[in-house]
């Protein structure tokens, strides 16, 4: 059956550079001398450390725990000794430091006790907690905690989209994983499908990966699974964007700020499906991922890499060339330049793109915008990038927002096609961060005001309580005095009633204050 596909506006077709890294099977990486495991590898709150320097850890032992429902856990990727728990440079273009657990491997690879999960009989909430504690997050690069996406919205879910599009040039980790582990990916997909109660599963794969498509189809037939379909989609960047792929497969456009579940669709990456299967079948938490090493290396290849492995350790295996001047984490369209060569591989590292001045020459100097509209024709979210650029440049951020600045997914299509070589995405990132900063300031002011009101209220309340207690005491005293003369139990109720009323008023005030803080937080844009 040929499925009807939909299209999204715009998009670009850069050279894919994918064949070189798919010649060899997924490789193994010898243990490095040290693993630097950042605690914060997911979208959401930073997990808190569970270990301290000097402790020995087992492979798969939890070393960072989710601090709130929006966070996820982190584990020791191998057995060894914790050298330190201290801030280290993170794989982030800012060069920011964050708390990391530095582990010296002992080479024994001693596992924690693992066992398959009886997930079908588990309460859904318990299962979600288990997945959170297994550290499973979206491996497409977004690292959104998976347990938070594993609940169907109201009215159930129609379609589960498994994203194997992998549209960024150079990156082939999903491609290779589908070729080599198709069956397990499909098993993971069925687990997700059942957790969500989705009617059908659509696996979207760009048609430049015929081997992966064939492998997935073969696995599908072998497993004789119902209601799962492998769909080849046209190769066009950014088809692998969740919203773009959902659009292509279902025709639904999920607007900015809305969840796809509101439209009956949820989307998971193939690697995440694999990880979920690995966890429920073997009890193994997420300790590694497939990473493409490509670009300025002798032999581009995919490796299974433990989190915390220094990027240079992996790149050298692939034969990093001497004129290398940078690592980019991710692809050339949306990737980020790393602050140094030794930052660790994390859950978001789908690709270490080894760059050189020859491979990625610095762009031509920026020229003025000639309003040619190329950027608008390339934008997959139907924006008018040159208008947003105009206003962002003039620091007129309100206007930029009117042109839907926050709908921009920073895919880079506009900058890719711009004949004036304008780094449009830089302007948009800048504009967004400025808007956020302003919102934050405003929120800080708001919450300060709330705190102030709250304090005033508390002082007022304490005064009142004192007065009430006093009144109650005197009433009680008076009642006691009276009751010695004439028994009047009614009077005894009065002080109690006064106390209850005061408590209720207090609760009400608290609720109101809470509502205010919540409202202030809601204003923050995504």
């Amino acid at each position: 059956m040929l499925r009807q596909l939909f299209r999204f506006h715009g998009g670009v077709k850069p050279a894919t550079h994918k064949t070189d890294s798919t010649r060899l099977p997924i490789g193994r990486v010898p243990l490095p001398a040290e693993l630097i495991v950042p605690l914060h590898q997911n979208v959401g709150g930073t997990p808190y450390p569970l270990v301290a320097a000097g402790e020995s850890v087992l492979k798969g032992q939890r070393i960072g725990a989710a601090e709130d429902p929006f966070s996820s856990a982190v584990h020791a990727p191998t057995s060894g000794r914790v050298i330190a728990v201290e801030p280290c440079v993170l794989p982030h273009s800012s060069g920011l430091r964050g708390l990391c657990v530095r582990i010296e491997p002992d080479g024994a690879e001693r596992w924690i006790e693992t066992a398959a999960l009886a997930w079908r009989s588990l309460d859904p909430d318990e299962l979600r907690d288990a997945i959170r504690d297994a550290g499973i997050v979206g491996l497409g690069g977004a690292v959104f905690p998976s347990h938070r996406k594993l609940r169907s919205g109201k009215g159930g879910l129609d379609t589960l989209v498994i994203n194997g599009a992998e549209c960024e040039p150079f990156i082939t980790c999903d491609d290779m994983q589908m070729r080599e582990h198709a069956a397990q990916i499909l098993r993971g997909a069925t687990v997700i499908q059942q957790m969500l109660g989705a009617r059908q599963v659509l696996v979207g794969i760009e048609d430049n990966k015929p081997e992966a498509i064939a492998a997935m189809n073969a696995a599908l037939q072998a497993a004789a699974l119902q209601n799962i379909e492998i769909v080849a989609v046209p190769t066009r960047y950014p088809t692998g964007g969740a919203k773009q792929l959902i659009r292509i497969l279902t025709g639904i456009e999920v607007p900015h700020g809305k969840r796809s579940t509101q439209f009956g669709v949820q989307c998971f990456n193939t690697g995440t499906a694999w990880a979920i299967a690995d966890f429920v079948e073997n009890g193994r938490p997420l300790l590694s991922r497939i990473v493409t090493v490509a670009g300025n290396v002798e032999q581009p290849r995919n490796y299974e890499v433990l989190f915390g492995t220094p990027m240079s350790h992996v790149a050298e295996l692939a034969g990093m060339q001497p004129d290398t001047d940078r690592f980019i984490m991710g692809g050339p369209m949306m990737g980020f330049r790393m602050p140094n060569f030794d930052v660790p591989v994390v859950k978001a590292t789908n690709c270490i793109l080894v760059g050189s001045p020859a491979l990625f020459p610095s762009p031509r100097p920026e020229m003025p915008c000639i309003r040619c509209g190329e950027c608008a024709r390339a934008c997959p979210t139907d924006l008018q990038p040159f208008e947003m650029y105009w206003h962002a440049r003039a620091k007129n951020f309100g206007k930029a927002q009117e042109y839907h600045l926050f709908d921009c997914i920073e895919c880079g299509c506009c900058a890719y096609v711009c004949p004036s070589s304008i780094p449009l995405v830089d302007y948009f990132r800048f504009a967004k961060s400025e808007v956020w900063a302003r919102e934050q300031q405003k929120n800080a002011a708001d919450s300060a005001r709330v705190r102030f009101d709250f304090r005033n209220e508390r002082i007022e309340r304490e005064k009142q309580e004192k007065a009430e207690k006093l009144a109650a005491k005197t009433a009680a005293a008076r009642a006691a005095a009276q009751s010695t003369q004439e028994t009047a139990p009614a009077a005894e109720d009065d002080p109690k009633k006064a106390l209850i009323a005061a408590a209720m008023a207090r609760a009400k005030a608290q609720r109101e204050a809470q509502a205010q803080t919540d409202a202030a937080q809601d204003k923050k844009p995504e």
Partner: protein
Amino acid sequence: MTSLNSPYLRQANSVTQVMGEVLLALLPGVIVYVYIFGIGVLIQILLATLTALVCEAGMLKIRSKPLGLYLGDLSAVVTAWLIALAFPPIGPWWLVVAGTALAIVVAKHLYGGLGQNPFNPAMAAYAAMIVSFPALMSQWPGAGQLGGAAQAALIFGGERIADAITGATPLDALRTGLHAPNAQLIELMRSQAFGAFGGRGWEWVSVGFLIGGLYLLARRIITWHVPLAFAGGLVLIAAIAHLLAPLRYPDALFELTAGAAMLGAFFILTDPVSGAATPRGKLIYAGGAAILTWIIRHFGGYPDGVAFATLLMNLCVPLIDMKTQPPVFGHKKD
């Protein structure tokens, strides 16, 4: 700002390349023009190009912009060629030089340079010159009428006795002819100013520009919106008028091949800087220009309406673009 951030890949295109393609696309029209009307237009192109480059360099220097980068973008050359093609090929040298200087210095750089000018510089120059020198701007040679030497002599200071040296352009012939008592379009059409279809000689120049325009479309330098809306609008209004008063208004094909219509449809109204940018905006912009062109041609005081129509629509661009923003992903009402 040279970016260190993603995307690290860039398509191999540039302003220079875009402008170069436009120049290339102008060639077929230019070649036919020279073949039919003589060498004059080449001299004009040369004069205009030189003037444009000198003015551009001067202004860049004053504004302390990197000379090589901006001079090499070829945008000034495109403006120059459009001026040379819109001006009469046997106008005195200073006419085109003054026009080009005005376009580059005032219409382009005083408004902020590349990408900032609200008015199409070439059309601004044309409008300024035809208002200031209406007689000189209306002297056109007939097809094959003047030899190269005679044209060069006229350009560089020959004595000008208007009637002896120039034939009327078809649009002019139409205008003056129709004002004569009892004039009928059919007889006029048989006069020497008219050819196989449209004005004599002009129809083939128009075909040349059409070929270049189709090339630009094929290379995706321009989109179909502006040419189609302009040509379609002009054809529609001309056809209706011709149907209602066939003795007074020429047919659609004539309108389409006369004056700067083809040049306008593919090269002038498609100027991205001064034109509308959204797809729907382009339709409104070019459609409006078509209607204005026809009105000015038949009811205005000047022989051709493309320049004034363009400038008037340039004024409306900010409003048009603002009102025609396409719906954003996820916010469409299907």
